[in-house]
Each structure stands twice: as structure tokens, then as C-alpha cells.
């Protein structure tokens, strides 16, 4: 079959230009975030469209295979010629549905069609877990791709990107589109080819880093005209560019990608030959910091270190001595610089603890992620701090890295000309999604009404008791032929629970958030009768837990949530793993009085009221804090964008 291929162009690179909201726009957005059209009106409009799609669908269904392919070709030409008009769009969706039916044997349900329509309108479709979001995504993706627009389908991990791409390839191929997935291990050449595909499945991190790498290649020639001029002059290695621009993105798990992960900007760093650190200087700083006394020379305020006046005086005296004989080239010249040096040294001394914040392995300092408890091999602390801790631990200081580019998700996603998302849980953050990304959340009703039972919250005194209780409860339910999933907050929790179960002799599966195929298999097996699975919230994301008949008959999957997560959304998402698509299922919470989340509450607040209420309060505070962090990042983004307009570099 002939495929219609548009010329691949990495130079035009369309992307939306962002303007900072003005002082009048801000309150307007704030207001619009709160005042919305009722969801019913929106659903009614979509319902009307559904009827027309079904009419088209009947027509498509009557075609034989050869005729179908030919009609798709005609449709595609019409789309490229006229664009995605409303009439063509409905016909296209019907075609995609038919293609999915013919190739996968799955035709999109009405709710999936509604989700697809919502996403094509640039909304975030809120669909319950297990409603088939992967299949839903093919609707807008294929429709846009047929119209000649490159599409990025963004998922949360490499495994899901590869899996989704593979699963849906037949549908796209049937429509004459080609599909590719980007995974971490791919070489730049492979990536370039993959990005040339009509529909690209990738993770948010890979995508942003590739985008940042492109921006490094482009340098200041960010305008297509400038870029072309530079290429003609030979200043631009356009062959090195990966992406074709930011046209159309569909973000899976939109709340997690666009908000939860958006609290820290992505930083592309590289070796910095000209910023090599003087080992002697670092040693001097560490030695000097060792002589500083807390309370006298520096004070700790809200996990930040401040030098006192006495400290500053001492620093000035000491550095005077150190400077002698070194002249103007000394690293101690300049008050800001030496205060910064001593600050870093003090932080290295007093803030970070071995085995809690970092590990020393093979003579290298490696950072431990606070949340997952995993070692993050490819990360390092900011300027100088890494080297100081390395010296403190007696290691050879590594080469300092220098920031090459830095970008926040907020900025990145808004650059897409068309941005849509889907997720199971967006209701709670719809205002923030609107203010930050200017996307509305559209709630799509479930295909079948849910039968999930909430069994309430059980409170225990401490962690040990919690593990014992969960272990007993899981064993008991497993004996009833139910499938049990225990979700813990951190990996360490999961391990502790696993140990407790092992001690009790209970057979179970443990997921360690590696996010790979093996894990997906484990989670897929979690639906068999009598299976107990322990996992963190991150583990096995995007994989359905399919129940076997015995388990369904016994009452389906029981989810035990061992402690509240950072956001109630995450709790809801975990709860959504049970009772999917009309299956039976139940959810319960088991919490202890020493949950880490309670740290959000200060002083007497920590002991006021019942434990569930306290936990909800703490969760609300943490959610608000994270939202504030994101808002601050966004505001800083705008401010810096204004300030750095002269640099000609976006990142």
C-alpha cells in the first residue's frame, strides 16, 4: 500500500510562542479557572457528535478491506487538503475505530470516543483507570497524524512507551501511518528516525532532553529564518537535530507528568572544562567550615544555613590569611564567593548524612532519592557541593558539570501547538491545569458503573503494627480467593512490608518500581485468585490488573493502601486499580500514627483530632505546598523569560 509521506523538516520547528500573562490576564485566568461551562453541556455536545460518528462507522464497517484502505487514502488526502474540519474529523474517528476493530478486534466504546473528542478539542480527558486510555489515545493521535501533523504520545516510562507503541502499531499501520517509540537506550540516529514517524510514543523525560539537545545544536538560531540562514552559512549542523517541532501532544497520566513531575526543572548538563575546581580550595573550605560552630558562626533556620555576623567576621579574617601569597587569583577573593564557598561547605558538613542522603560506592558519591529510596546514578548535586561531599568522604572529586540548558515542564508543554491529556485523576487539579496549561479537564463517564466498595480506614499505633496488620489481612483475604494489592508510599515501606510477610510465611510478589516488562507481568498476574502483590504507587503504572474468574467470583481485587500519598489524587489512582470496568472490588486504608506525611503538621496540630482527619489535613497542606512550589516555578519562569530575553536562547 502506498503511504503518503510529507517531507521531513527539522528546520521549521513550529512551536507556540509564549507571552507572559499580563496583570489583567492573571485575574481573568483565575476567574475562568473557577467559572466553567457545566460538564453536562459539554457531554451533550459530544453525545450529538457520537451519533454522527456511529453513522460514519456503519459506512466504514460495510467496506471490504481493499476498499477500506482506498477510502482511508482518500480521506487522508482530503484531510491534508482541507485540514481537520469537524465533518472530516468525525469521519476520521469512525475510520480509526473501524481500523482498531479490524486489526485488534477492539472497537472504541462511546466513552472512549468521547475521550478522543475531548482530546482533539485540546482538553484533558479524565477517564477512570482501566477504561482503555491507550486505545483512546489512538483516536486523536491517528486523526492528527492523518491530517499530516506529527504527534507525540507521552507516557510516564520507557516500558509503557514501547508497549503502547507496539500494541497500537497495527491500527496505525492499517491507516497508513508509521509509529515509533523512543526509549532511553536509543542512539541519536535512531531517535532522529523515530521522531520522523507520524506518531511517536515517548516518555516526558526523553522528549524534553531531546528537545534541550536540539536547542543546544540550534544555539541562538531559534527562528526558522535565522536557522536557515545559519545552515546556508554552515553555522548550523542541522543533521544533528532530532525533533520536528512541537505540534501535537497527547499526555498520558497528565496530572502526574504535567504537575507532579513539574516541580523540578529539567537540567541538561555537560562537562565543564573551564570550571574545574581547585581541590586545595575545596579542602580549605571544608577545613574552615569544620571550625564553625552552630549557633555562633551560623544558624539553621528552616533547613537553611545562614552565616551570622560573627561567622562573617571570622570568615573574612580566615580568608585573609588564606589569600596571602595567592594574590588576585585566589578562590577566596570576593565576599560573595567566599560566603558561597563556606555555605556549601557547611551544607556538606551539616546537612547531608551518609546512607541517608547519599551512598559511597566504588569511591563515588551517589545520591539517594528521598521518595523512592533508589540510588540515582546519573544525578549529582549542584555546583561544588558534589565535590565537597566527595572530598569529605575522601573520594576523588569528580569533574564538575555545568548546566547547558534548563527547562520546566510548564514551559515545555505550553509550547505545543496542540496539547491534550488523559488521566484517571485530574478533578482535584483542574484549576491549576487551566491556569498553568490553559487546558480544561473534561470528565468522561465510566463505560460501566463502578462497583468499588470503600471499607474505611484502619488506624494503628506504629509502622510495625501496620505491617503486621496488613500482612494478616492480606493473608486472610488471599485465603478467600481474593486478589490483594498492597500499595505503599515508599520503596522502603514496600521492602519492610515484604520482610514482615516473609517472616509470617506469606507468599507474595514484590514490585520495586523498576518500571519494566517484568514488572508489568507481575502486576498483570496480580489479578489471579489468592495472589498478594506489594508495590509502591509508581510500580506497574499503566498496566491493567486483569482478574481471573475465581477472583472475580470471590469479590475481585482488594487494594490496601498503606498510608496516604503526597496527593489525594494518587490515593484515588491506586484505589482505581480495583473494580475496573464494572468488576467487583474493594479498597481500604491502613494508617499508622507515625506516618511521614504527618510531618506537615507543626507542633500541637500534629496531635489534634483523629488520625484520618489529621492525615487528610496533612495531605491537603502538602498538596497546597506542592502547588505553591509549582506556581512559584511558573512565576519565576515568566520573570526570567522577560529578564533573559536578550540572550536569544529559550532555555
Amino acid at each position, binding site marked *: 500500500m502506498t503511504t503518503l509521506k510529507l517531507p521531513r523538516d527539522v528546520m521549521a520547528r513550529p512551536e507556540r510562542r509564549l507571552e507572559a500573562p499580563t496583570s489583567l490576564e492573571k485575574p481573568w485566568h483565575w476567574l475562568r479557572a473557577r467559572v466553567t461551562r457545566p460538564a453536562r453541556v459539554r457531554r451533550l455536545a459530544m453525545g450529538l457528535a457520537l451519533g454522527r460518528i456511529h453513522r460514519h462507522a456503519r459506512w466504514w464497517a460495510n467496506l471490504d478491506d481493499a476498499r477500506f484502505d482506498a477510502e482511508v487514502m482518500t480521506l487522508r488526502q482530503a484531510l491534508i487538503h482541507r485540514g481537520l474540519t469537524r465533518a472530516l474529523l468525525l469521519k476520521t474517528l469512525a475510520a480509526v475505530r473501524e481500523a482498531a476493530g479490524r486489526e485488534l478486534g477492539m472497537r472504541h466504546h462511546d466513552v472512549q470516543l468521547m475521550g478522543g473528542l475531548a482530546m482533539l478539542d485540546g482538553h484533558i480527558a479524565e477517564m477512570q483507570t482501566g477504561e482503555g486510555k491507550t486505545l483512546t489515545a489512538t483516536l486523536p493521535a491517528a486523526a492528527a497524524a492523518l491530517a499530516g501533523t506529527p504527534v507525540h504520545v507521552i507516557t510516564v516510562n520507557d516500558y509503557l512507551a514501547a508497549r503502547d507503541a507496539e500494541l497500537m502499531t497495527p491500527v496505525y499501520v492499517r491507516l497508513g501511518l508509521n509509529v515509533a517509540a523512543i526509549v532511553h537506550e536509543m542512539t541519536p540516529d535512531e531517535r532522529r528516525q523515530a521522531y520522523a514517524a507520524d506518531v511517536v510514543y515517548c516518555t516526558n523525560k526523553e522528549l524534553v532532553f531531546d528537545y534541550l539537545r536540539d536547542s543546544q545544536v540550534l544555539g541562538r538560531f531559534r*527562528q526558522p529564518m535565522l536557522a536557515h540562514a545559519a545552515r546556508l552559512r554552515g553555522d548550523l549542523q542541522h543533521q544533528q537535530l532530532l525533533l520536528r517541532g512541537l505540534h501535537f501532544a497527547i499526555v498520558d497520566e497528565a496530572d502526574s507528568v504535567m504537575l507532579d513531575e513539574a516541580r523540578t526543572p529539567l537540567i541538561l548538563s555537560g562537562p565543564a572544562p573551564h570550571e574545574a575546581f581547585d581541590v586545595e580550595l575545596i579542602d580549605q573550605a571544608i577545613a574552615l567550615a569544620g571550625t564553625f560552630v552552630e549557633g555562633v558562626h551560623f544558624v539553621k533556620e528552616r533547613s537553611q544555613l545562614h552565616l551570622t555576623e560573627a561567622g562573617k567576621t571570622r570568615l573574612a579574617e580566615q580568608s585573609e590569611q588564606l589569600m596571602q601569597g595567592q594574590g588576585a587569583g585566589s578562590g577566596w577573593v*570576593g565576599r560573595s*564567593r567566599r560566603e558561597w564557598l563556606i555555605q556549601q561547605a557547611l551544607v556538606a558538613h551539616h546537612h547531608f548524612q551518609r546512607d541517608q542522603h547519599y551512598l559511597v560506592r566504588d569511591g563515588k558519591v551517589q545520591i539517594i532519592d528521598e521518595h523512592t529510596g533508589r540510588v540515582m546514578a546519573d544525578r549529582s548535586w549542584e555546583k561544588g557541593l558534589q565535590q565537597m561531599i566527595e572530598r569529605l568522604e575522601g573520594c576523588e572529586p569528580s569533574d564538575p558539570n555545568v548546566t547547558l540548558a534548563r527547562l520546566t515542564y510548564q514551559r515545555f508543554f505550553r509550547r505545543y501547538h496542540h496539547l491534550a491529556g488523559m488521566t484517571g485523576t485530574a478533578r482535584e487539579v483542574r484549576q491549576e491545569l487551566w491556569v498553568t496549561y490553559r487546558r480544561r479537564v473534561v470528565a468522561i463517564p465510566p463505560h460501566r458503573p463502578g462497583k468499588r466498595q470503600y471499607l474505611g480506614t484502619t488506624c494503628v499505633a506504629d509502622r510495625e503494627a501496620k505491617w503486621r496488620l496488613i500482612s494478616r489481612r492480606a493473608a486472610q483475604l488471599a485465603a478467600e480467593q481474593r486478589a490483594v494489592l498492597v500499595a505503599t508510599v515508599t520503596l522502603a515501606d514496600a521492602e519492610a512490608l515484604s520482610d514482615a510477610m516473609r517472616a509470617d510465611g506469606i507468599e507474595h510478589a514484590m514490585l520495586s518500581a523498576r518500571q519494566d516488562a517484568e514488572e508489568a507481568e507481575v502486576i498483570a498476574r496480580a489479578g489471579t485468585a489468592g495472589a498478594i502483590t506489594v508495590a509502591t504507587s509508581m510500580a506497574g503504572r499503566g498496566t491493567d490488573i486483569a482478574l481471573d474468574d475465581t477472583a472475580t467470583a470471590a469479590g475481585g481485587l482488594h487494594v490496601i493502601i498503606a498510608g496516604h500519598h503526597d496527593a489525594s489524587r494518587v490515593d484515588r489512582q491506586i484505589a482505581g486499580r480495583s473494580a475496573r470496568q464494572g468488576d467487583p472490588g474493594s479498597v481500604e486504608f491502613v494508617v499508622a500514627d507515625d506516618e511521614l506525611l504527618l510531618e506537615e503538621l507543626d507542633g500541637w496540630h500534629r496531635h489534634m483530632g483523629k488520625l484520618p482527619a489529621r492525615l487528610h489535613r496533612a495531605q491537603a497542606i502538602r498538596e497546597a505546598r506542592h502547588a505553591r512550589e509549582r506556581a512559584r516555578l511558573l512565576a519565576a519562569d515568566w520573570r526570567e523569560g522577560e*529578564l533573559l530575553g*536578550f540572550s536569544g536562547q529559550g532555555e
Partner: protein
Amino acid sequence: MAGPLFSQHWHRVAELRLRLRGHASLHRHEYRGEPWYVLHDGLTGQVHRFTPEAYQVIGRLDGKRSVREIWDQVSASLGDAMPTQQELIELIGRLHNANVLAGQGEIDIDELSRRQATQRRSKWLQMIRSPLGIRIPLLDPERFVAASYPLVRPLIGPLGGLIWLVTLLSALLLMGIHWSSLTANLADRVLGVGNLVMLALIYPLIKALHELGHAWATKDAGGEVHEVGIMLLVFFPVPYVDASAAAACPDKYRRMLVGAAGIMVELFLASLAMLVWVMAEPGLIRAAAFNVMLIAGVSTLLFNGNPLLRFDAYYVLADFLEIPNLFSRANQQVGYVVKRYLLGRREVTSHAGSRREACWLVGYAVTSFCYRLMIMVAIAVFVATRYLFVGILLALWSVSMTLLLPLAKMFKAMTMDDALEGSRAKAWGWFVTATGLVGVLLFAMPIPYATTLHGVVDSREPAQLRVGASGTLAELWVEDGSEVAAGEPLLRLEAPELATEVQLLEAEVREIEQQLLASVRNAQAASLLRETLALTGQRLDDARQRAAATVLNSPRDGLLLMPEGTPLLGRFVERGTALAVVVRPEDLRVRTLVPTHRADRVRDDAQSVALRLPGADDSVSSRLAWMAPSSSYEIPSDVLSVEGGGSIALDPQAEAPLTAFRRHYLADFDAAALIAGERSVRLGQRVHVRVAHAPEPAGFRLWRDTRRSFLRLFDV
């Protein structure tokens, strides 16, 4: 130098190689004994001030060195004063926004056009945001100023100064002499409709000369003026010139002259007008001169001449103190003081270079704020007495601009601003404490509360003492205010012609009696004479009676009061003249008019009443005797009206003579204590009445008064 040394965005600028554009030049100035570098953009006339540290950077922007190299070099050369990366980025950002940077290879046309669009939009937004200070540029006066400058040139110097000073001093002298006739009923003259027209005609002329003064002085300081326009200040057109180019002049006295030129021109004009006003006959010329004085003199002193408002004198002061941007830096310094000392934050930096400067800044911020508030309220009140509705609107606007807007901003900062993260609790603590304190002062702390009224002494049933005969006052046996008994002789009039008349009539009677004896026979004549005798006897009786009335007796017991004052002995008194009244002490009262809104309080909540006679230091206590059940427009005595020195405004359109403009309740206070006092009381005398109420916090009163004003304004 504060903040982290390294910036997260350094990578975006580190490799840039920038240079200054050709049209930007640097000048060295001195401010408060410190060297500064002023960057003058020859194209736009804009001026930017930089520290010597910044100069170290700017001077190195040659298009050959990268920003990173410059930073390394500057760090080495400046030592302790080295800039942080963020500071360097901000500096370059400032230069970029000032359009004086070049040299990044290709010109990014998109970026340029976007910046132009933003600039244009921000101008519009500026207009929308502050509709009360819109600037409308009109023309470029440079050619005219350049052409006329040689003509004015000799006047800018000692000679001009001398002429100016002499004129000003002589005008001041004249003003001192004619002060009272100048100031009589100023408001009537200013806002009379005819005068408004004349003001509108003269105003643009004076202001045009004012702005030309600035322009010439700028020229003299080596700058150029490229923009003249009209600023709509509170919807009132005020011309302005863009004399910012003068800031490039290193001599601070010349810069001050640029700022002061406008005022000097206006004062000169006012002085000339004063001379004209004194010499001219009343008429159009004199009125015009008066208006020139008014505009040029008063408005200059109140607005332009006051450094607390951001007009001419402000710039003169800023130049004199060598603190450019005085206003904004003063406010920032207040923000710093609040953040640093009230909230205890460490990362904020002071905007002042020295302690002295800090004092200047904070002092200026506080006084200018108070003054602005004051002048706004003053203007509003002044206009409100004339044009009620506009006045209230103006007052509302000024209050919201000077009080509510900053308050709202503060509130927003406290709830949403991230900069306050970590000290939010402290900020709220201060806020709650401050509002609580104000609240307690306003609504919980009772302060004395009283109604003060003007009263007039008055009697319920006065017995008038009228003289029964005309004559000169011979003897007065009683004094004003003394007690008299019924029948007691009070005074005697001397009426010699009355005695003569009695004697004459007596003689006549005797003559008739004799004639009667003589004409016994003649019955007809006798009867005629008898009739004449009866008539004359009556006349004699009448004359005797009148002669007896020269002694005036008291008609009843009571107090003798002479409202017209004690008559002089020997004064001639017509018959029927009331010389005194005799009142019973219990009939005396102090009559007052109570404004409607205070009537209830005076009636129901009069804790104590004090009466005080004008000029007396002590007061006597009293009580409310009676209050009229309904209000009326009548005024019992002209003593109470504004014209009579009281507080009740008369209705100018009323036909009846004593009609009040607003309704009042008539109230009487007991005057017994007043009579018992040492000082004599006269009828119709003014008495100050102070009715003390239960102490009440000021807030409630303020609220009632405000509410009342609005109810009246909207007629509900």
C-alpha cells in the same frame, strides 16, 4: 551583595559577546560623595545610572569578551564587591531593555518587534491602569527651544537671578501690605463661574511658559527636550516636558535648575501680576492679574513647589540630596525595613548606601504619604463644599488610591506572594496586631463624646418695663441683673415740661373756678364753664399722671434685666420705650437649635450639660428643660445664625428673614445656675452649651457620620 553567587540561568548568557551601541555614552557623576556612572542614550535621551562596580562590567562590553570572561575579570578586580551572576544578568537585562546593547550577530527581528509591541501595550496599559495620570505626548519642541535659546541665554545666570529675586521680593512686600484684601473670600473668587472661564484662559499660557522654562534650562544643561505633552492629572490637563536628558549633566546645581526653572518662571509671573494688581483699577486687568497670581503662586507652592508630591520640587530635592529615584527608592526602603526588622528576613538588602540616606528615604516615604493623603482630603473637602457630588467622588478616589490600594496590595502580598514564604505567620501577626490595635482604638476604647451648641438667653414671659413719659433719665436706683420687688421704684425720668404743664393746667383750673364764681347769674355761661372745668380737670389729671410716670416702679417680683444695656443717665427717653424687663428667674432659659441627627442623643443621652458664657473660663452645669417635638426651619434669634456668629446656616433663598437651611430641633436648657453665677446675664446673650454624652469609641461615630453623609448625598 546578596543572593546566591551562581545563577541557574548563567548558561544562557555566559557565552554572549556584547557591546554597547554607538549612541550610548557614559558620564561620571558624583552622588552623595560616591562616584556613579550615567549612561546617556543619545537617541532617546534616556539616562540610566550605574554604580562604579557596574561600570566595571559595562566598560568591558566591547563585543570581544564573553560575559563569562567579563565576570571572571570583574570578580578578580573588584574583590569583595564582585557581582553575583544574577546581578550581572540583571545588569545586562537592564541594558538590553534600554536598547543600548548590540553585538550578538544577527538582529532578531522577531524579538525586536515583540519588544516594541510589549512597549506599546504597556503604554496603553499604563493609561488604563491609572486613568488619573495619563500622558499624551504632543510635539517635539526641540527646534523651537534651540532657536529661542540664544534669546533667553543671558537670563540664565546671575543677572537673571538678580532680576528674579528683586521682582519676587517687591511682590512679597506688596502682598504683605494687601494681604487682607487679597484673601477675602478666596473660595468665592476662585470658583465663581466667570472666574473659572478666566482661569481656563490664563492657565495654559502660564503653564506653557513654565514648561518652556524647563526646556530652556535643560538646553542650558546640555540636554535636549524631545517631548512635550499634556498629562491628565485627575482629568485635569497639566502640561509636561520630558526633561530626563538633563540627568546626564554632571553638575547637580544645573540639574536642580532644570527642575526649579518652572517654579521660578511661575513665581516671576506671579510677582509681576502682583505689581499689576496693586496698580490697576478694578476691572478685567486686575481680575486677570489676580488669577495669574492664583495659578502661578498658589498652585506652585501647593503642588509644584512641594517636594512631597512628585512634581518639580521633588526633582530638585532629589538632585539636591543626590538620591535619584527618591520616591520609589524611599518606598522600597520602607519595604526593606518592614521585611528586615518586622518580619526578620535575612535575605533582603537595603536600598540605601548609608545610614543617613536610609533616614532620608524612610522619612521621605512616610511624610510624603501623609502629605499626599492630606492634600487629597483637603482638595476633596474644598471642592465638596462647592460641588457636592464631585467632591465626594474625589474623596473616595483619593482614599482608595492612597489607602485602599496599598492595603489591597499588601493583602495580596500576604496571602499569595511567594516572597513572604516562611514569614507569612509573622506578617499576619503584625497585620492582625496593627488592625487589632486600630480596631480597639476605634471601636473599644471609649472617648469623651459631646454635642456643642450655641444658645441664646431668653425668658418665657418677660414683663417689659416701658417708660410712661418722655424725658431724660434722671435717676437709676437699680442695676442690671438685680432682684426687684413689686412696686419698688426703679428709676426716675426728669421731664420739666410735664411739671410746667401741670402748673399751667392747675392755673387754668383755678382761673375757670374763679370765673365760675364770678358768673353765678349767668346760668348759661356757668354751665359752659363747668364743662370746660371738667375737661381741663381731665387734662390736669392726665398731665399729673404723666408727671407721676417719670418714676418707674417694678410691676412684679423678679430679676431686672436690661437687654439693651444699662441706659446712660441724662439720656432722653421717648415715651413707650422698653428700658428693661423684669423676669422671674424660673422663667429664664437658654434657647438652642439642635441639628436633627443629634436631637435623639441630646434628648436621651445627656450625661451633663455645661453652659459657658463667651469669654468666661468657667462653666456652670445645667439640664435640658424642654425640646420641641418636631423640627423646624425657624431660628429664634439671629445670634444663632452664621451671620450672627452662631453655627446655623441661613437659607439664602428663604423669604422669611430668619430661616435655617436645614431643619433643627428647638431645645431649652435651664439657666438658673447661670443667673446664680457672678457674671450678669443679659437677655439675648450668646451661651455655649456643651451636652456631654456617654463616652463612645470613635469608630461608631465615624461610621454614623459617614453613613449620614451618604444618605444625604443619595437622598435616601
